[in-house]
């Protein structure tokens, strides 16, 4: 589904952020990307739907090359859902309108159909009664669930999560992870940048460990948590699992 091969990205000749990154996410697979901050994991996931440009290598989604200038990027992006660290709901629109905007303007759905779809998804994430509120009236966890619903409203073929729980208060993390776990169990193709190792243990098929812009380890979940091959991954794991 998502093929990443030999991707290099640099901001200047001396400042390389991604070095020869190669991996893939198969249909229905859940891949967790972890690593210390500054390791390039957020940058990599943003390269997948071309929110960040890269200089070398190829990324393709469902057979369509992201870095081909002829690719209709808005159309490709509309098929891949993305959830951001800071939710990025549109603050000037009501919750339901947040869910309807792209359905109507990008997919061309009629307003009442978009509303029906939006309400279904709000019900699914348990926020139906908040449809007429504005984003700022909701808690962080609720906003992130709306953001997931907004991405799902586009009927995506895959979902990208960029540290979806990093900006949340601890007591709100589980309500967001619950939604993500359900989604994974339903067979959604997911690429998730996160430090939530509990989530990785529960639903991930594979875990990718990144450090200094390189993919250091790309292993099946049990192998990764059982015995990571690289020292750096071992150190990282011992640090975040010891608490």
């Amino acid at each position, binding site marked *: 589904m998502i093929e990443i091969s030999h991707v290099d990205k640099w901001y200047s000749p001396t400042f390389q952020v991604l070095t020869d990154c190669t991996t893939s996410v198969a249909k229905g697979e859940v891949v967790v990307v972890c690593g210390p901050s500054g390791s390039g994991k957020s940058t990599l996931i943003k390269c997948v*739907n071309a929110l960040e440009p890269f200089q070398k290598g190829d990324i393709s989604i469902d057979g369509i090359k992201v870095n081909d200038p002829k690719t209709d990027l808005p159309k490709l992006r509309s*098929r891949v859902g993305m959830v*951001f660290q800071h939710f*990025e709901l549109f603050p*000037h629109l009501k919750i339901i309108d947040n869910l309807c905007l792209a359905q109507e*303007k990008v*997919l061309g759905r009629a307003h009442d159909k978009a509303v029906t779809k939006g309400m279904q998804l709000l019900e699914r994430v348990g926020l139906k009664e908040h449809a007429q509120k504005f984003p700022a009236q909701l808690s962080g966890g609720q906003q992130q669930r709306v953001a997931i619903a907004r*991405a799902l409203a*586009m009927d995506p073929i895959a979902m990208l999560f960029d540290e979806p729980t990093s900006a949340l208060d601890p007591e709100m993390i589980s309500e967001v992870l619950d939604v993500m776990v359900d989604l994974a169990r339903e067979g959604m193709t997911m690429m998730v940048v996160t430090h939530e190792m509990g989530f990785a243990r529960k639903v991930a098929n594979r875990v990718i460990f990144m450090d200094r812009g390189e993919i250091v380890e790309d292993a099946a979940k049990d192998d990764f948590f059982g015995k990571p091959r690289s020292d750096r991954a071992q150190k990282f794991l011992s640090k975040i699992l010891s608490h």
Partner: protein
Amino acid sequence: MLGSFDFDVIRRALPYLFYEGMTFTLTLTALAALGGLVFGTALALMRLSGLKLLGRIAGLYVDFMRSLPLVLVIFWFYFLVPYIGQWLTGASRPISVGAFASSLITFIMFEAAYFSEIMRAGIQSISRGQPAAASALGLTYAQTMRYVVLPQAFRNMLPVLITQTIVLFQDTSLVYVLSITDFLGAASKVAQRDGRLVEMYLFAAVVYFTISCIASFGVRRLQARIAIIR
């Protein structure tokens, strides 16, 4: 001192002052603000587009307009446009442009420079995550601007935009250099005709002051009502 005031001069001049003068002033203010906002937003988008040439052109335009006194621009524009029109169309005589059209175009061009800086600040006040989220949903650049960035930028900047419009409302009085009958022009004409300069200019000041004050007060009320909850 007030004993020698002739308030009846004002009363008698009221229909003329308001029907002709104030109507002109308000029409010019509204149209110039609207045109300036549209043109100014376009300039702001050019400057932020990332295309170097477009940005440079818009930047030069803004700097140029802001470096000239408004009254000079009004004056020059009124006398130059007929000749530029003649040169552009190849007509044998200078094209006649009415004083209203000429002053309106001048104000739109001038205000666009100021509005563009306000809108630029407004657009830059939107966090980069917002356009990223809009793009990730599949919205095109134009749709992102139209549905996500500009509505927020506009709301953030509305108090400043209206304040600038209040300044514009006062600046429209500069059309007196073209002998146009705006509110101040009308007051001035009556003042000269009846020899009642003190009364008429005092009255004009009171009217400008009152309208600007009420508008400023309205801005604060409006701001509270339409601000985006954060």
